[in-house]
Structure formats: C-alpha cells, structure tokens
C-alpha cells in the first residue's frame, strides 16, 4: 500500500480528530488550552449555567496579561473593571482546579511567552487560546490557533472544538538574510506581499533555509505574525534547534519520557511530495528592515523605501488607502525615513523575549535616548524580566535613558494605562497597527526591536544600519 504524502499540518490534525461530523467540521481534540482574563469569563459563566465544571483542568493554563499594569504590580489594580476581570479569572480557576500564574507568581507573563518558555508548548500538540496570536506556539511544530469565547467554552466542556479543516499553504523563504534583518522583518515583508487577507482560510507552514536559520525566538515572532495575513496560524517543522530549546525546561518531558517524545518529534515534517493548496517563494536577500506606514500590518515598506502612491488603486481600495494615510497623517509617495517618532514600545508576545531585549540593548549601549521620545520597555514575562536584570541589560537601558517596566501586554492593545496619546506616533514591536489599537487616535508603526532602538535614539524613523 502506498500512503498518500501528507503535510506536517495534516499529520498533526488527523491524529487529533475524535470524530468527523458528516458534511460538517471535525471534532478536534485539544492538548493544551491557555486562558487569560479577557476572553474567558463569559465562557466560564456559560459553563456554570450548564451546571458543569472544566472537563480537563490539568490541560488548561491561566495567566492574567491583557489588562494588567506594568508598574507597581504589587499594588491592587487601580482601574476597577480590570481588577474585576483579573479577580474573576482567579475565582474561576480556583473553582475549576486550573493552574493560575497570577501577577505575583514567578511564571507570570504574556500567555504566548510563558507557554514556550516553561516547556508547556511542545511539537505535535494541538494548542488553542482565546487570543489570535496563539499562532506563536506553531514555531514548535504544533497546530496552534486563536479561538472565540464560544469555542473556549467548548474546550472547557469537552477538551474538543468543532473545526472545519483549513487549507494548507507553504511559504518558503530561501537564502541568507542581510545583517540587521530579523524575523519581524520577514513577517512584515511577507504580509506586505500577500496582504492581510492573503492567508485567509489557510494554515501556513514556513519553510526554507532562511526560516531554518532563525532561532526559536525568531520563529515564534514569525509564527506570531502569521495571523496578520489572515491565516489561522503558522507553523515550522521542529528540528534540533527546537529540541535544544525545549530540553530541560520546567514542564518539558524528562528522562525516558524525553527519549520517547524526541523519537516522535523527529518524524514531524511534511512528506517530500506533500501537496499544498497554495505556495509562495521569497528570496531572503530581498528583505530589508521593515516598517509600516498605514493602519494594517500589510501596509509595510523597507526603511529606505517610500510610502506607496496608491496611484493604481481604484474604488473602495483607494478610499481605504486614503483613509488610512489620513489617519496616519502621511502623504502618498513620501519617504518613511525621517518621520517623527514620539513613543517607542518594545514588548508584546511578538517581540517581548530575551533576544529582543538583547538586540535592543546591544544597539542602545553607549548611546542616549532622544529627549523627545517616551519609551516603554516591557518584558514578556517575569522570567524575561529576571534575565534582563541578570544579564546586566537593565543597567544598559538605564544608562541610555530607558526604564524597565513589569510584564504584560501593555501598549500592544492599551487595555491598561499604557496608551499612546491621540495623534502621537509610536514605533512599536507589537503586531497590530489598527486605528486606535494603542489608544484612541494613536498612530502606530510596526517594526523590529532594532528599528525601535534606532527610532528611540534618533527620535525619527531611522535605518539601524546607518547609525
């Protein structure tokens, strides 16, 4: 019998199908369920109304991250609604026997940072969370995607969700990346090429030599952003770098169990002749440090480039483009370099890991922050914060005029006090530049930690290679 070649995605998905509903979605078993304070309360309420408890609490991990303050975390949260959500999460977890890494816990952090860093995220798993950037965990060769609150309730009730199987896409990035071009730049480049809806209906596998050359943290940044081209998620086949990263972490398999798991993980890759519904090829050497100029992550250009003129756009495309530039206060065809920057945010589940802060520190070392810039340096987790201190990065920040804050989502979505004021420009290492994402009227330009560092030092959009 000849077996049909399968993609990595198919292999993991098919192994988790409990049942196929006739003409309908699959009943997909979920290995790990991450929850946070914003998208879980209504699901817990629904469960309670059914007179039920969480079916598999041991597979559920909780952390409050979206609306927590990033200073004075030892004090009660001032804003009442935020405090109630965080409190509600605590009560719901206690009632249902779910492990909670609350603000004072040494494992606390942004949900997509702590899963990988604790070794909870492993190859071959199915992972969901009521947060679209769950795609981050795909960097380990797992199927990880964001779900809505009704689906959170499904997982609570049954450890399964109903999902139609998405189509498969492969994005190959071959060749060598130029110096100072990071995983974030690959992500912004790819989205600028295929648009914010280019991946809709698909699950992406990233492949090619440039992808293989990325560290695990870089791979997480890339998979994190895969949702921004509309895809359900992104994944990368696990390899030595993956195994090396997981080994020894708190919840990683140990001893004999490790050897067993490793043997299984090594088989996780797309078969040679596997067929994808869509495939793209990009050349790594075409990519330069990227930055966005508009109000969706697809509106990105290389730092030496110009804002498009939009000339060839018609109808509603043109209206949307003009509206976006008007919001940003930019004109078609202008140079992006030299644009004034008021705020710099480094953090989020996209770029809030230790490597991101090392990159930033390495650049700002011995330099001074521009006086006109307000910078927020927000680690993705307690562990990252601790590492920043242990490696002496905190002192470098301080000497350059930057202060370190405490972990949380912070200005990524501005649910806490870290809001960019109306009309101000922010260079942000987060993942979304939608209107008002960083606060009402805030103007966001997405970029890598290196681009953020260059902007923080010069006070304008700058090319880090020229400083």
């Amino acid at each position, binding site marked *: 019998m000849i077996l049909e070649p399968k993609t990595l995605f198919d292999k993991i998905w098919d192994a988790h199908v*409990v*049942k196929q509903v006739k*003409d*309908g*979605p699959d*009943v997909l*078993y979920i290995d790990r369920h991450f929850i946070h304070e*914003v*998208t879980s*309360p*209504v699901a817990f*309420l629904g469960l309670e*109304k*059914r007179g*039920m408890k969480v079916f598999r609490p041991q597979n559920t991990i909780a952390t409050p991250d*979206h*609306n927590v303050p990033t200073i004075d975390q030892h004090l009660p949260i001032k804003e009442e*609604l935020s405090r*109630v*959500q965080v409190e*509600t999460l605590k009560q719901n977890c206690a009632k249902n026997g779910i492990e909670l890494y609350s603000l004072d816990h040494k494992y606390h952090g942004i949900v997509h940072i702590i899963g990988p860093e604790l070794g909870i995220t492993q190859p071959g798993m199915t992972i969901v969370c*009521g*947060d*679209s950037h*769950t795609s981050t965990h795909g960097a380990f060769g797992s199927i990880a995607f*964001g*779900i*809505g*609150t*009704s*689906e959170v*309730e*499904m997982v609570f*009730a*049954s*450890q*399964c*969700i*109903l999902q139609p199987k*998405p189509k498969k896409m492969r994005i190959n990035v071959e060749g060598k990346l130029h110096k100072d071009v990071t995983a974030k730049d690959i992500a912004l480049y790819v989205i600028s090429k295929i648009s*914010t*809806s280019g991946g*809709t*209906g698909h699950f992406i596998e990233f492949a090619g030599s440039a992808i293989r050359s990325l560290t695990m943290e870089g791979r997480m940044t890339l998979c994190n952003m895969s949702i921004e081209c*509309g895809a359900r998620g992104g994944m990368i086949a696990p390899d030595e770098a993956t195994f090396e990263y997981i080994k020894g972490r708190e919840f990683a398999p140990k001893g004999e169990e490790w050897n067993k798991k490793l043997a299984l993980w090594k088989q996780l890759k797309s078969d040679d002749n596997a067929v994808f519904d869509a495939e793209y090829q990009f050349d790594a050497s075409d990519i330069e440090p990227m930055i966005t100029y508009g109000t969706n992550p697809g509106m990105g250009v290389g730092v030496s480039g110009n804002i498009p003129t939009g000339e060839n756009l018609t*109808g*509603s*495309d043109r*209206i*949307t483009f003009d*509206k976006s530039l008007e919001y940003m206060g930019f004109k078609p065809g202008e140079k992006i370099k030299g644009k004034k920057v008021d705020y710099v945010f480094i953090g989020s589940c996209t770029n809030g890991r230790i490597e991101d802060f090392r990159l930033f520190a390495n650049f700002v070392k011995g330099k001074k922050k521009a006086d006109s810039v307000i910078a927020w340096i927000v680690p993705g987790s307690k562990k990252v914060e601790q590492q920043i201190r242990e490696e002496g990065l905190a002192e470098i920040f301080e000497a350059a005029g930057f202060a370190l804050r405490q972990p949380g989502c912070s200005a990524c*979505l501005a*649910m806490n006090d870290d809001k960019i004021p*109306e009309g101000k420009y922010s260079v942000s290492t987060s993942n*979304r530049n*939608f*209107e*008002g*994402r960083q606060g*009402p009227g805030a103007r966001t330009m997405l970029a890598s930690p290196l681009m953020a560092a260059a902007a923080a030092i010069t006070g304008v959009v700058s090319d880090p290679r020229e400083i």
Partner: protein
Amino acid sequence: MSIEKFRRLVSTVVPLPIENVDTDQIIPARFLKAVERKGFGDNLFRDWRYKKDGTPNPDFVLNNPRYSGRILVAGKNFGSGSSREHAAWAVYDAGFRVVVSSFFADIFKSNVLNNGLLPVQVPDAFLSEIFQIVETDPTAQFEVDLESQTITILKAGISVNFDINPYKKECLLNGYDDIDFLISLKKEIIAFEQV
C-alpha cells in the same frame, strides 16, 4: 442551551463601504472589560460612531436616520484581527442578524456563526451593487433566505447564492448549540484520550 434560530429575513440594510474593518474598529479593546455578555452593542464601532466628547458623530452611518435595518453590509475582509468574540456580540447586540461582505476573516466568521448571526459572503460585484442601490434608496428591501442560501435585492429582483457549511446551516435553522453537541460525545472523547 441554544442559539437564536434563523430562517428568513426581509429588511433594509445599513451600508459600511469600508474595507478591512478590523475587530479593534468593531469594538475597541478598552470595552472588553465586562465579565458578562451584555451591553456590547452600545460600543459597536465606538470610535467611528461617537466624537471625542462622547456625542454621536452625525457622519457615521449608524447615526444617520436614513439607514436602519437588521442587515449590516460591509466592505471586503470584514472582521480581521483579534479573536475577540465581543465583536460578534456587539454586532448581534446592536440588532443585526446578518452581516454581508465579499470576504470575512476566519475567526470572525466562526464567532458570528456561534452566536446566531449569519455571515453572507457575496461576489465583489454584487456587493458594489448593494452599495449603489442603498445609496440612492435607503428604503430598498433585501431578503436573506437561509434554506435556499440566497440573498435578493427585492427591488431589482436580482439574487445570488451564498455558501454555508451544511452542519452550521442545520445549527442555525434549528438553533442547535455546538457545546451541547460536544457534550453528547463525552464517551467517544474519553475513548480517544485512552489511545
């Protein structure tokens, strides 16, 4: 428990000819702080609908007395961005039962379906047609029929078919809830866990 049943609806439409309307526009993050599912409709399109001082923005379609109805028609790639189901709740809570666009973001689509809201995906040309018709006649009536999977511009007598997963169609027609269905599979799920 169940969702609201949907079979057929005849209504005027509310046009929103903007593309890539993301979930941060549908409901900004700062309004996600409730722990219950109610009152989200008031903050639907919050930052477009109200001026900075909190008074309604007369230029926004939801504040324009010319337009009303239970069908929201939006430009392509509606609902991109966050997985927040609050976006679906806000649209539903504001009284809409159908959302029409030429393209929907994945998570948003499954969220609306789980809440008794019908996403109707139509060709770009048909979408433009709708926008043109309501621009000249805001009282134009539309019919959405789930059984036959059609949307019709009654005045012009033109209709197109739309796709929906047959399982999801059954759920909407009958008000079935996915969670009840999954709970009924407990035995099979436990058996699956053991292998």
